[in-house]
């Protein structure tokens, strides 16, 4: 009798334990998402596509899609209030990771190319047309204006900005928007070169630009201060992103806060990148992520990238019509107007070298590239101002 009840006790507990395991709670969607996570990790490790982002996101997808019994109250899911993952996810949902990343970006970005040749800022502005082109397409597909705005920001090619804006405008779509933004950022080397070839002639690709003038330390110090005041007076809703970006840059350039700049650009950025990537990945739980809307978001993200890259290149061609011959801009740097720093500038450089091995475009492309960071933050501020 005693041995039977003991056996029943063991059996009951094992049955209960089985019900808590991932095997008992698995659904088809979980396996799909686990495959997506593994694919991201494979892309990062084997193909070297943005490994700093795709490894945390890919692993986060694995973490977020291990099935478990949601009704057991174990406080382990990312959407369960009080769970460790939920606490870490607060930086995404409340939108304070992205400004910290912007602090790091500011501290590691040299704006010299932009200061030396300020007209390159306009390329960064033109590339933001990708955002609003995608906004129009999203409206056509039936998204509401706030959702369309959150999705369209993918065209800025700026993950932190996309997360920041979607956390404010469409929190329910944030996982899909973030993964889409980072995926396309990783695929910039695949998406942009065909467009750059399509919209430029052989002659245009050979344009050699004058080396940029030397920029004084004073100009570098003035830039973040004036940049902050001018852009934020126009778009106060961009303060969290632009404020931190320019603050980080001042730490870098002022020369008396080297330690702070180093921390912001290295340790702090690394920590926040790890947490941001992992929690964004973990937020893509199959039940939330595998919806028809996600497919639309990926499609719109792709559209946004194409429009942004193309409009940057086409704007340079248009701009060249009014520029004197010796000041013409190589349209191969137009793609760098999206703020995938420094990947898109590197693509400009590589493509330029392909057609003329002595034509180094990297420093020229860095101008629109960092202008794109400012431009996408301004665009996010505008969308937030209009739609929040």
């Amino acid at each position, binding site marked *: 009798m005693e041995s039977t009840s003991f056996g029943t006790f063991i059996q009951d507990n094992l049955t209960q334990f089985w019900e808590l395991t991932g095997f008992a709670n698995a659904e088809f969607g979980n396996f799909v998402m686990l495959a997506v996570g593994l694919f991201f990790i494979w892309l990062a490790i084997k193909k070297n596509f943005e490994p700093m982002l795709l490894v945390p996101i890919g692993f986060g997808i694995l973490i977020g899609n291990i099935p478990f019994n949601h009704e057991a109250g174990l406080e382990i899911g990312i959407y369960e209030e009080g769970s460790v993952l939920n606490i870490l996810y607060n930086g995404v949902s409340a939108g304070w990771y992205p400004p910290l990343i912007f602090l790091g970006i500011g501290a590691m970005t040299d704006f010299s190319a932009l200061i030396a040749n300020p007209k390159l*800022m306009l390329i960064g502005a033109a590339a933001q047309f990708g955002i609003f082109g995608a906004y129009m397409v999203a409206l056509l597909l039936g998204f509401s204006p706030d959702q369309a705005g959150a999705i369209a920001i993918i065209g800025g090619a700026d993950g932190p900005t996309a997360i920041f804006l979607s956390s404010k405008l469409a929190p329910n779509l944030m996982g899909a928007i973030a993964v889409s933004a980072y995926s396309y950022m990783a695929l910039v080397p695949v998406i942009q070169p065909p467009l750059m070839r399509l919209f430029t002639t052989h002659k245009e690709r050979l344009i050699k630009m004058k080396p940029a003038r030397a920029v004084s330390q004073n100009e570098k110090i003035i830039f973040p201060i004036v940049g902050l005041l001018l852009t934020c007076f126009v778009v106060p809703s961009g303060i969290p992103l632009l404020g931190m970006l320019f603050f980080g840059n001042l730490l870098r350039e002022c020369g008396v806060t080297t330690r702070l700049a180093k921390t912001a650009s290295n340790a702090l950025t690394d920590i926040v990148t790890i947490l941001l990537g992992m929690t964004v990945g973990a937020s893509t739980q199959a039940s939330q992520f595998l919806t028809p809307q996600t497919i639309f978001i990926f499609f719109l993200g792709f559209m946004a990238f194409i429009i942004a890259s193309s409009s940057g290149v086409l704007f340079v061609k248009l701009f060249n019509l009014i520029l004197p011959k010796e000041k013409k801009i190589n349209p191969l740097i137009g793609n760098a107007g999206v703020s995938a720093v420094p990947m898109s500038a590197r693509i400009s450089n590589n493509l330029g070298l392909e057609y003329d091995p002595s034509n180094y475009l990297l420093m020229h492309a860095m101008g629109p590239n960092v202008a794109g960071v400012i431009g996408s933050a301004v665009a996010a501020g505008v969308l937030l101002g209009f739609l929040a």
Partner: protein
Amino acid sequence: MRKYIALVAVMLLGVAVAGAASRKAVRINEVMVSNENSIVDEYGNRSGWVELFNSNFAPIDISSIFLGYGPDSASMRNNLYPVPLGDVNTRIPRRQHVVFFTDGQPNKGTFHTNFVMEPGNFIGIFDADSSLIDYVQIDANLQTNQSYARTVDGAGVFRIRTGSDMEGQYITPSSANIIRDTNERIALFAERDKNGFAMTLMAMGVVFTALLVLCLSFYGIGKIGAAVSRMNKARANASDGAATVALSDVEHDSGEEIAAIVMALHEHLNAHDTENTILTINKVKRAYSPWSSKIYGLRQVPEHHSAR
């Protein structure tokens, strides 16, 4: 040391001013004098009530403020109800409301005042230092089950609300005076800008304007910087007795030009610049900062005392 004390004093003053300023954001938002079918208190009783609104975008603790009541604005100070300390519910979240029952029974709890309101009288909020934060004279025509409420939370004018189902007539204790089921801005964009063209036009206009202004500013700053550097160069040349260089002829040398000149000198003249072989040692002066001082980061070595 004085500098640090001054800095700390300024920071404390800033915190004090900010703290005080936040309580100034509390507003009387809605008042009901005679209540027969509106909300009940925690004891199941109905009485008049006053709703306060935190118009700030940060939480405010209203403990130790006073609710004043009287037949005129001056007499409000003579009949004050102090909001008790130590009640967690006196912390009003951002843009939220709290209701006090004006039943004249303060022994029932924090949210029961020591006065009962009548139409035509005044009710006000006073800060802990007795300064008036907000007040309203209740409309003398206010009837039973009607409220006297702001048209917009924390702002706008007071109007009588009848409690009917018509828009703007709802009685809304503990909730917003305007009940919105949609975001008006988004609804407006959805209605008036179906294809997104207006948004694109406006937003791209703003983005271009912001970056164009930045661009023009840096053209200006660059020109000023170049002019200053030309002046400095000219001044240095003049003081060295070197040949005067026409200011307009001086341009920034590009790295490539400098590299080409150096290469040419090296190739054709085999020239080297001559070092003056004088070694100068300058004392590097660093400003003291307690943040980087090692004495605060190191433990004192304990003294060794041998017992004899």
